[in-house]
């Protein structure tokens, strides 16, 4: 009995803090979302804020589109590059730890600071990226300031006009995705390296005796045995991209096709003090995140090998 009391005493600080600043806010947030709430409850709206968000033509749908676009662009980029790098670094390489330390560095440093640096690298006038393009006698681009879709830009470059629905993600969005890749590749690579280290070396020895080549080793040993790690990395990357905020806020503040759901929530609250509407949007975004997580878990149950 004394041990029980002691255990609860040890847990009390953590549990009380969770209760006050995590559990209570969920319920409070739902209560807020049912009101027109500016500094305090003004009037009860029921599901009015949700209906407003879900009405065709509201800001929510484009922001959800931007969120999913961002995620669908960023995830494959990040994962494939990270996996390739991890596989290369897993060979007997000299200076392995130096490469790891350097590639992990962007994840460690403040996203606000590095996004500010990248915003300048992308600057149409003084940016390093356009200087390089000019040096290669290519056309400089407007990057974060460019609202046009990338397919439209490519087609225009070739002298073709594309229908509007084929415009593709805005160049600003692609620029944000390139930055995101730069930040997270080292982090994901580190997770993949740990996963590779867990694959027993005997497997490779046995397969080599049977005459397997490098590609076969990857396809039939590394890829299936790495699948739990791959699933995990994909899961956290998808969730992370669905919530992305800091760097988008610093680089574009949501302009030029980059107003993701997180940015919309923040703007509604911070700029317009619409706590009720912002809370309703937050519940809708969380529902999307939950749905995506469940779908991924389903897919993993079929494909992950153990």
């Amino acid at each position, binding site marked *: 009995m004394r041990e029980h009391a002691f255990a609860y005493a040890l847990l009390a600080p*953590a549990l009380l803090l969770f209760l006050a600043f995590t559990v209570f806010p969920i319920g409070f947030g739902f209560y807020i979302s049912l009101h027109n709430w500016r500094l305090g409850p003004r009037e009860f709206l029921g599901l009015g804020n949700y209906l407003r968000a879900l009405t065709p033509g509201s800001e929510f749908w484009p922001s959800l589109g931007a969120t999913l676009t961002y995620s669908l662009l960023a995830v494959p980029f990040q994962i494939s590059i990270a996996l390739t790098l991890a596989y290369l670094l897993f060979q007997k390489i000299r200076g392995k730890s130096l490469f790891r330390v350097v590639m992990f560095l962007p994840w460690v440093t403040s996203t606000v600071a590095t996004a500010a640096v990248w915003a300048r*690298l992308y600057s149409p006038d003084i940016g390093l990226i356009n200087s390089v393009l000019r040096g290669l006698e290519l056309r400089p681009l407007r990057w974060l300031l460019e609202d046009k879709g990338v397919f439209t830009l490519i087609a225009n470059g070739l002298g073709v006009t594309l229908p509007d629905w084929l415009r593709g993600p805005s160049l600003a969005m692609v620029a944000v995705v390139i930055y995101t890749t730069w930040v997270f590749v080292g982090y994901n690579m580190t997770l993949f390296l740990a996963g590779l280290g867990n694959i027993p070396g005997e497997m490779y020895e046995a397969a080599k005796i049977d005459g397997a080549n490098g590609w076969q080793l990857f396809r039939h040993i590394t890829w299936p045995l790495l699948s739990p790690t791959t699933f995990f990395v994909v899961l956290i990357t998808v969730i992370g991209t669905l919530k992305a905020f800091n760097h988008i806020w610093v680089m574009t503040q949501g302009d030029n096709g980059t107003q993701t759901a997180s940015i919309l929530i923040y703007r509604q609250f911070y700029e317009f003090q619409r706590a009720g509407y912002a809370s309703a949007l937050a519940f809708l975004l969380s529902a999307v995140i939950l749905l995506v997580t469940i779908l991924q878990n389903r897919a993993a149950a079929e494909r992950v090998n153990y």
Partner: protein
Amino acid sequence: MATATAAPLAQVKTRHAPGRSLKRVNPLIYLVLIIVGVASLIPFLWMVLTSVKDYGDVVSLKFWPWPPLGNSAPRFDNFAEAIRLIGVDRDTGLPMFFRHVLNTALVTAIVIASSVTTSVLAAYAFAQLDFPAKNVLFILVLATFMIPEELILVPRAVMMNKNYLNWYNTMPAMVAPFLVNAFGIFLIRQFFLQIPRDLYDAARIDGAGHMRYLTTIMIPLARPAILTLALLEFIWTWNEFRWIQLVTSSSNMRTVSVGLVGFLHTEGGAQTQLAMAVAVMVVLPVVVLYFFTQRYFTEGITTTGLKG
């Protein structure tokens, strides 16, 4: 103990990289790795170089305006000028930038102290003790992990305003959401679980209670995990932006990240070299700490694998 540690070590040594152990590594691999390594560093290099350039060299796009390629001199005055432009804190008479550094350091210290303490205590209960509802409580703690921060951002901020806690523009508001962290509890618990239970029985025989066992045996043994948690909390808190921006409005309560964004929207907007000087000062403490302790970062994220 000796035999228990010898076995995994032997296993590690026989482990080979896939299929490449005897052949020479393809030089193309080095080429790719070097390109990626350089790409990882170029933004940092550009930031540092730009922070000591003249405004004229920035707008005329000179990558290296100093000898031997050019004849400008490095302008270290940019740092002093940026600090001067950020203004002076009327309370203390200090430059506002230093006030931001102090605030950031204080927030970070409070968050580390609190999250390490709460994590160690809770982790001990979950790893070492038996009590009713243990599994339910542990699952609840892990569930807080799955809750997107977006969901509770607005209600948390509303809680801080004058109708409720009235903490707006104060230190308690700045640290409140970060005082406990499910990741920390999970990380330390994992570590505690690896410590053999025989140790506890031995300590019991020597007359040690739980509290003495925790402080004299478990905590010293779990030092690497505790250090990992403290370091990760350091970078997360040092780099925190959105929450601090939401619950503070007076400049003297802000942190370096929020101060940097403010500067980007004022003088730093046009004066890129000054913006980069501030960015260098914001990033520097974290980079220095990281280079000395990078082993703990990679171990921390790979043993628990959590938190993007």
